[in-house]
């Protein structure tokens, strides 16, 4: 089946702090979702929880990926099944070259057995093609994972991994932040190409603070997150409106609805913001 990621009423915390407070969202292959929201609203937490970062604890809710319980899978299992996240702050791993890392990862994704790797020739052909497509200096393959990379290089390296692993659901966690406008264009074009090449077999969740990148990757759906939940959803026009009224405008609507529905059990809305009490 085509990939489908169904998130239902997800609550999660970091240490003692509850960050996700009932997030509900569905991303299907063939769709591009934009998840927007102010800093601290829980966007990155959602991305990390979906990938299985052990730093975050899920309290309740469920996530189904291709109909299976995603939260029961280890991170590597999730990745092998086609889930990918381009991290906002990728860590460095000294002494391990990007080439050896990518070859191991792509082999795992393609179902090679334990301790088996795709042939060097095949890997090099693939790596060269992707590096060129994304306009990255091929020297990156000989460097250690993220070691000494500039902010922009790290983001491009994440997209390179995405291109090579050919995910079915890809989450981009603020990939655009810290990139100049030319780099945003290149990254966006790369993602669009991957999406088109997948012919409806790939879904993307673009997490971003700024609408800028959405000019180059037109989303099919846009969601706004506040305080751990999605408070409004719409089409690409929502991003434009957000650009106009800003998060403060959304926050005012959100607070108005929140005050109205205190204690109530039904859906309310004010402007673009709706409230679903679970």
């Amino acid at each position, binding site marked *: 089946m085509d990939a489908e990621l169904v998130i239902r009423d997800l609550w999660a915390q970091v240490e003692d702090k509850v960050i996700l407070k009932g997030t509900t969202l569905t991303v299907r292959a063939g769709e591009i979702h934009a998840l927007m929201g102010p800093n601290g609203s829980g966007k990155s937490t959602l991305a990390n929880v979906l990938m299985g970062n052990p730093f975050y604890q899920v309290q309740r809710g469920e996530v189904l990926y291709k109909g299976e319980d995603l939260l029961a899978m280890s*991170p590597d299992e*999730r990745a092998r099944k086609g889930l990918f996240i381009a*991290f906002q702050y990728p*860590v460095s791993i000294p002494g*391990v070259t990007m080439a050896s890392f990518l070859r191991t990862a792509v082999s795992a994704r393609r179902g090679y057995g334990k301790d088996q*790797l795709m042939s060097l020739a095949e890997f090099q052909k693939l790596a060269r093609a992707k590096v060129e497509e994304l306009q990255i200096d091929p020297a990156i393959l000989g460097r250690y994972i993220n070691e000494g990379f500039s902010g922009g290089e790290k983001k491009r390296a994440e997209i390179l991994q995405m291109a090579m692993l050919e995910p079915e659901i890809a989450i981009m966690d603020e990939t655009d932040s810290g990139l100049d406008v030319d780099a945003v264009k290149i990254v966006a074009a790369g993602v669009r190409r991957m999406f088109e090449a997948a012919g409806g077999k790939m879904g993307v969740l673009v997490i971003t603070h700024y609408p800028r990148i959405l000019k180059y990757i037109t989303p099919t759906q846009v969601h706004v997150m506040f305080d751990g939940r999605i408070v409004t959803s719409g089409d690409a026009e929502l991003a434009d409106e957000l650009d106009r009224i800003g998060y403060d405008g959304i926050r005012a609507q959100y607070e108005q609805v929140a005050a109205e529905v205190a204690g109530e059990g039904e859906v309310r809305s004010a402007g673009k913001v709706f409230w679903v009490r679970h």
Partner: protein
Amino acid sequence: MAVANPLGIDLDQYKWGFRDPEQYVFKARKGLDRQVVEEISYLKGEPEWMRAFRLHSLEVFLRKPLPTWGPDLSALNFDDIYYYVKPTERQGRSWDEVPEYIKRTFDRLGIPEAERKYLAGVGAQYESEVVYHSLREEWEKQGVIFLDMDSGLREHPDIVREYFGTVVPPEDNKFAALNSAVWSGGSFVYVPEGVHVTIPLQAYFRINAQNMGQFERTLIIAEPGSYVHYVEGCTAPVYTTDSLHSAVVEIIVKEGARVRYTTIQNWSKNVYNLVTKRAVAYRDATMEWVDGNLGSKITMKYPSVYMLEPGAKAEILSVAFAGEGQHQDPGGKVVHAAPYTQSSVVSKSISKSGGRAGYRGLVKVYAGAKGSKCAVRCDALILDERSRSDTYPTMEIDETDVEVTHEATVSKVSDEQLFYLMSRGIDQNEAMNMIVRGFIEPISRELPMEYSVELNRLIALEMEGSVG
């Protein structure tokens, strides 16, 4: 298709625990006294001066106490060890003459990989004796000598007598004295002035007799402007009773010469590996020790470089891996005894499953060694709560005009790094392996290709089951 077992070894033969039936021409009795030493010297037909040297060394050995610092050696029973075992009457002059069962053992160790390429240069010590040793013709034409130590003494007595015991005298420590009394095998390398030996000289060592000690003695002389890279790799079968390996390596690096000495040690987990390695470096000479310690019960090994004349350089790279029941106590010594000398020490240790690994080092700068530089860096990676790392750096600096730096880190594999690799589909075990391989990369990249591969493979084997 790349596989995890590139040398084609049957990994089910766990950690080289196989052994051949013992076939000995001569077998000394256990224990050590004057008569055993006399007998060794007699059987080898040695000159009188060597016999006297051995007997003197025995006295030093008997007089000297065990070291009062470092790992616990109290379980070592000197009376329960064979001090000399000779597998065949004579030396194999060509590969064809090497006994079949010995070839078979090498085969299982994967040695043919290197042997095929460097057949003519392989010196292999087996059962305390070098059974095969020959040298490529072009080297002979260049005047390079690469022999086992016994043959070196026989064929080049004057050179041996001039240098033997001058870098590591028997009085140095108890185990140097022991080796000096009962040494057998090891390599003798002589590189004439200006000669660059382009292909590494390789020697393989292996213990294969119960309760047998192995006491090889290596002497390398690099004449001015010459270069040589000597490589030894050790693997050993598993035994139930304790074994002792106590080698001495002496290296003389003359003006402008460069010597690199690479070791991968993988003794079985019951071996006491107590080795004295030392080099002297003269004007503008460079000495490099690359030392990998994986096996053994206890390893005490502190490769040293004495920089005796201006411009001498020393580099020591060491990596140690200690698993369950192992105590790796490697390190290094750099002695700056002349102005404008430079040294660099990089030590990487990994401990898991209750193992102890660390670094013990000495930096000594004599007064007058002005303009000298020394950088020491030791990094420890601890893989679980039960394991331990110890760092004992000693610095004795008697000169003010020097630059000495020391950096030490102790780290655990970070959850962030593991998660990052796993988020790309790599399973936890392989992710851990990758991080460990990356940790030792500064050293493994200095190894010849097949050693680098073997080191990574050995570590992967040791890492098996280290994550839940």
